[in-house]
């Protein structure tokens, strides 16, 4: 049985269902992100795991123990808030020691543990400072140390980097990940930033309107989104309407041109219109060796982005963007040029929802 199990979780505020049909099984030591736009229910779900909100229905189990009805102070979870929430009247060391003191640990045990935590977050020299004397990034590191000092079973972070500058955000992201890996602590990380989720997580739960749209590794989520929402929320993607020809053989027509997808067309009816998705980096131009799908069109636009050149090719009603690496010895193609775009059968993703 998984370490953290969430079953059929549901939360309503009045008439409004904020979280519905939410299931998740996370292994011990796993780093799981909840990714989704603002208001999709990430925080509410996290707060139910922490015990700050009571689920309307469903169960939450941690290490086999049903915690659904337990108070937050009985759950042994560590929480890190977007606003840091350090106790303003206490020094850094006192903040980190708070949970240990509450648990009735002896001073002989608390002292070394606090030192160890401050070393882990690389702030041992700031032990006697007060929160208002620290930068935002330092405060959030102290908040992390305070949360993990009590050796929680699960670490919960709610957009911990949203209030920080871009630069600090990236360095702190790596630091949080390093601490998490060192301690091997099971972690749920809430974010609306896809880059954060993709770079840190073992698995990502993409959420939309209170439901988990897709759960998978960053690789799966990015390369094989199952719904239009996931496809458009994570990364840049070509989304095109396709008319199903033969579901079993994966044959589908884009703008009258027949292509083949080796993924997920099961159950579709001939003539049905489905959205097909294609990553720009999966498409090549005029590649004689490529087998798979080939479509002829004309170059509509060329955008030089530095290391990458993004080219848009038009076919009648629809167009496909593709990325090629910049090559200093080759001029990028011209607008209006006739070209053939190539992509593998496996890279054409047919989404579950209709176009």
């Amino acid at each position, binding site marked *: 049985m998984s370490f953290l199990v969430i079953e059929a979780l549901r939360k309503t505020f009045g008439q409004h269902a904020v979280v519905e049909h939410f299931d998740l099984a996370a292994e011990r030591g796993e780093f799981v992100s909840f990714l989704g736009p603002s208001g999709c229910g990430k925080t509410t779900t996290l707060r139910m795991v922490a015990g*700050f909100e009571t689920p309307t229905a469903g169960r939450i189990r941690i290490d086999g123990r049903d915690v659904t009805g337990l108070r937050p102070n009985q759950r042994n979870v560590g929480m890190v*808030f977007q606003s840091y929430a350090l106790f*303003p009247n206490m020094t850094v060391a006192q903040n980190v020691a708070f949970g240990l003191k509450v648990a009735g640990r002896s001073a002989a045990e608390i002292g070394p543990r606090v030192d160890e935590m401050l070393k882990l977050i690389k702030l041992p020299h700031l032990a006697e400072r007060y929160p208002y004397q620290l930068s935002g990034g330092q405060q959030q590191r102290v908040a992390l140390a305070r949360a993990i000092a009590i050796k929680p079973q699960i670490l919960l972070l709610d957009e911990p980097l949203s209030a920080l500058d871009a630069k600090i955000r990236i360095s702190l992201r790596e630091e949080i990940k390093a601490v998490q890996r060192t301690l091997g602590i099971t972690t749920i990380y809430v974010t609306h930033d896809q880059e954060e989720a993709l770079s840190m997580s073992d698995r990502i739960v993409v959420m939309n309107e209170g439901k988990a749209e897709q759960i998978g590794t960053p690789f799966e989520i990015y390369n094989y989104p199952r719904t239009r929402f996931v496809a458009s929320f994570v990364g840049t993607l070509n989304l095109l309407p396709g008319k199903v020809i033969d579901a079993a053989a994966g044959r589908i027509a884009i703008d009258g041109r027949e292509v083949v997808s080796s993924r997920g067309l099961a159950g579709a009816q001939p003539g049905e219109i489905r959205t097909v998705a294609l990553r720009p980096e999966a498409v090549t131009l005029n590649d004689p060796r490529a087998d798979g799908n080939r479509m002829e069109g004309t170059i509509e636009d060329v955008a030089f982005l530095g290391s990458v050149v993004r080219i848009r090719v038009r076919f009648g009603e629809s167009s496909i963007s593709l990325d090629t690496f910049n090559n200093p010895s080759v001029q990028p193609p011209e607008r209006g040029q006739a070209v053939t775009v190539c992509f593998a059968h496996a890279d054409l993703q047919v989404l579950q929802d209709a176009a």
Partner: protein
Amino acid sequence: MKTSKIGPWIAFTLGALYFIIPLIATFEFSLRLKRGEYSFEAYRIVLGDPRFQATFGYSTLLALATIVIGVLLVVPTAYWIQLRLPKLRPVVEFITLLPLVIPAIVLVFGYLKMYNSSSLLPLTSSPWSTNLLLTFGYVTLALPYMYRAVDTGLRAIDVRTLTEAAESLGAKWPTILFKVILPNVRSALLSGAFLTFAIVIGEFTMAALLDRPAFGPYLQLIGANRAYEPSALAIIAFFVTWACMGLIQVFGRGARGASPETR
């Protein structure tokens, strides 16, 4: 630059004179008990009066009791309202403002009717229980000031998130209240306590009608019968008040990081 600074200075000087001249005049008058020379004779008489010591001590004690009860009543209430029942805020605010609208004399007559010696709860039947009744009366009188001060202090910190942070670290509510919330509203509490103290020390109506030996009735008695001593008392009262203010400043500074302006 210059012209823009003169105006405020004139206003400040006029305001300061408005407050200081009567004070100096009172002080000067209080020194003239002995004909033809300045002396602290009036102060010697007042401070040496056993009734002064007794009533001032009594009122101080009651003020302290009022502050303790007030804090224990108001802090958890304001905290709970802010955290869980924000919808009740207008109701509670209205209730806390009632003592400003209802005159103390009405309150005390209500008390005498409710708690007289033939009632279910005969609080006026013994001096000890009357002291208790008077203290509760003072808590009521000080409620608007205490509640406002504490509520303002609580609004300046993120009560909800601090509570949740403490809770997830395993703390139960007494720990949260006394170790996390109270220390962070310390300066607000101190101003509430100071206002309470000032109200209780000078209160006359309740103490007189409940016939308790408080400082207010003593002040009135001296004022009606003597010439110089009331001025000396006024100066002493003023001094005590300023000493309180000074203490608040000292303690307010001591609460590092607790006041929002230092964050």
